[in-house]
């Protein structure tokens, strides 16, 4: 049972364009939604995260949009750069003490062409 569904599987964007990655979740107990960026041979690194009490969070070129009623959230990368080429994972966790495990989507491989 996949609790977090992520799309698309791969994405190719031109430099300066907008990259959009979508995720949907099933478990209404989830209350913390991070996005991780992973480069080949490296571990995932936290990019940006949101809690469901806000509908949008922006940090530099990265924005999370959150729709609680639809149980969906998305990552927008503005002015995409070749250095953004990586695999992106959405994740979710109930955030309850004793249940901090992250549930990840399957990932989106982003390629930004120069």
């Amino acid at each position: 049972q996949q609790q977090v569904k992520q799309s698309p599987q791969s994405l190719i964007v031109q430099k300066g364009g907008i990259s959009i990655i979508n995720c949907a979740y099933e478990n209404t107990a989830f209350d913390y939604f991070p996005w991780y960026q992973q480069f080949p041979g490296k571990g995932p690194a936290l990019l940006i995260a949101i809690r469901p009490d806000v509908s949008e969070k922006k940090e530099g070129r990265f924005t999370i949009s959150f729709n609680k009623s639809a149980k969906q959230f998305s990552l927008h990368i503005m002015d995409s750069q070749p250095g953004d080429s990586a695999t992106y994972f959405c994740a979710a966790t109930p955030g309850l003490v004793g249940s901090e495990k992250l549930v990840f989507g399957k990932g989106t491989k982003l390629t930004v062409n120069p």
Partner: protein
Amino acid sequence: GAGVSQTPSNKVTEKGKYVELRCDPISGHTALYWYRQSLGQGPEFLIYFQGTGAADDSGLPNDRFFAVRPEGSVSTLKIQRTERGDSAVYLCASSRTSGSLHEQFFGPGTRLTVL
């Protein structure tokens, strides 16, 4: 300061052998997590330690997998009677304490290949 470190970076073993994978968390981090990442997939949770005790081991796939953290710092993931399906990157993460407000910092992983 140093991040999460994992050793070895690569491990090749034969089917049926026993392996140990080591994780050194960030100093002072009390929470430690193990995840497994298969090719083309997202990380999958295995086990979570708060201090020395396993607070949640619901992700361990079967009794061939076991993990310890005897002094509340370094952790070892142990796999008995390895199978080809165990081949994956095993990731370790640590956080300052428990709770979702505390970022999980991941190590580079150990790539396990079972021949």
